[in-house]
């Protein structure tokens, strides 16, 4: 039996998908030109699949802060916080995150994936229950596997279903911890936080909100869904990432629970990995100041979201239920989705292709992520290209006004 024999079905699936002419999961951005453009297959391509919601990756202030930290503190920390010490930048960023979220404690993780993996696997023990949304990100599912708590899944964004499942656990002594996301990464919809909080309070449960895709996007100060919904005080722990609106890599968790800092010596994905390079910490610290102080970025982002969502909706594309910087075009057939994705890339527009089982239900998705730095003429070109290809591939009904 060969070492990779059991991957044969996956190898076949990848071959099938790649038969469109390219591997959708292996696109090379040969040269990145800006937050919205890169060279792909030798061709200048508009980026609509970056999660770079505020376009800060090339912001002069972030780049300068990173460069300066690189010169002053070197290329890397070469170790973990517990074994090899904390650089002052890491500690300052943790304080800045705690202050921004108006919490007592902040922890920085090396990736957003590890932030979820670490927090969720550690806060719930063998007698406790994790109640997770059925559309949860892979990092949440993996956290459930790493930890020892009992895991119950509830129907996506369905507070009534959550209530029913918590009711069944009413005789259990262990803690119940509910995990939801500010914006779900595939469909771009938000959790019904008000209803979730009511259910949490009714059952005396705890609540963790993953603001990975909503940080910088929702709320007057950009803190995410909890701020947007006016429910900051009802969330026990907020988890998030530096790799989307903040334009770098890394993750964090903030909380006002008095014992929260114990995670530093109990949470394995925090403890047993090298900490982020000083340059990343510096650019993230600067980006955090920018997203708080410059609501204009969010205004630009939402103006772009409205334009693209309304244009695609008018053209007849089937879209996700909620307007957000993640606009998911639904395509029933996996083959058609792959074909349209490849046609778009050929025409100079890069979007993300998402296929089942990574998607909810059995739908395939062309996942478009909008950026505050997209110029209107770029978005017009993108909509025009989508419309042309939509009609040519019979995804759209014919004779619609192109670019309407």
């Amino acid at each position, binding site marked *: 039996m060969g070492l990779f024999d059991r991957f044969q079905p996956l190898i076949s699936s990848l071959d099938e998908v790649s038969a469109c002419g390219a591997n959708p999961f292996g696109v090379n951005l040969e040269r990145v030109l800006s937050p919205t453009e890169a060279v792909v297959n030798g061709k200048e391509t508009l980026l609509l699949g970056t999660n770079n919601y505020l376009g800060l990756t090339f912001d002069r202030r972030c780049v300068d802060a990173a460069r300066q930290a690189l010169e002053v503190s070197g290329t890397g920390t070469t170790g973990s916080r517990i074994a090899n010490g904390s650089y002052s930048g890491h500690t300052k960023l943790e304080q800045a995150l705690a202050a921004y979220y108006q919490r007592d404690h902040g922890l920085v993780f090396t990736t957003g994936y590890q932030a979820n993996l670490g927090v969720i696997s550690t806060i719930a023990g063998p007698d406790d229950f994790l109640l997770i949304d*059925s559309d949860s990100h892979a990092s949440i599912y993996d956290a*459930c596997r790493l930890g020892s708590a*009992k*895991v*119950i*899944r509830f129907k996506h964004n369905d507070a009534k279903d959550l209530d*029913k*499942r918590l009711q069944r656990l009413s005789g259990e002594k262990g803690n119940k911890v509910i995990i939801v996301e500010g914006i779900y990464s595939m469909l771009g919809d938000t959790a019904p936080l008000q209803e979730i909080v009511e259910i949490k309070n009714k059952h005396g449960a705890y609540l963790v909100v993953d603001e990975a895709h909503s940080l910088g996007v929702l709320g007057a100060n950009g803190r995410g869904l909890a701020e947007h919904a006016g429910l900051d005080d009802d969330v026990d722990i907020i988890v998030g990432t530096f790799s989307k609106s903040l334009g770098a890599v890394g993750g964090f968790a903030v909380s006002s629970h008095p014992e929260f800092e114990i995670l530093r010596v109990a949470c394995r994905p925090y403890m047993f990995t090298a900490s982020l390079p000083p340059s990343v910490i510096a650019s993230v610290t600067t980006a955090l100041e920018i997203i708080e102080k410059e609501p204009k970025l969010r205004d630009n982002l939402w103006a772009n979201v409205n334009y693209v969502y309304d244009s695609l909706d008018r053209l007849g594309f089937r879209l996700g239920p909620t307007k957000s910087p993640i606009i998911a075009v639904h395509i029933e057939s996996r083959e058609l989705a792959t074909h349209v994705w490849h046609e778009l890339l050929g025409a100079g527009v890069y979007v993300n292709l998402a296929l089942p*089982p990574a998607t909810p239900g059995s739908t395939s998705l062309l996942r478009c992520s909008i950026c505050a730095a997209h110029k209107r003429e770029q978005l017009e070109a993108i909509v025009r290209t989508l419309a042309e290809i939509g009609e040519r591939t019979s995804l759209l009904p014919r004779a619609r006004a192109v670019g309407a």
Partner: protein
Amino acid sequence: MDTAEKIIEMPMSEDYVFQETKKILDSVNKSGVSVTGDTNIVEDLNVDSLAVMDVVMELEDKFDISIPLNVISNVRTVNELVGAIKKIKEEA
């Protein structure tokens, strides 16, 4: 809330649990093979991990129990699943 959904308590035979489990599995079975006690749920029925978790949710509602995903992570066959459900129901 949801008292209407509460199932009236009554002892459940192994066969009853099997038949109800089979009904739910039949609805996701893409392979065409018929579901028996020895059927390997993932391999024989050609269902992905997400579909299996959806089946678990339906079973929870059908039998009004909690089936923690990690508790049944070692379950491979339909009989093992039926056994796990019986055990949870009896302990409830």
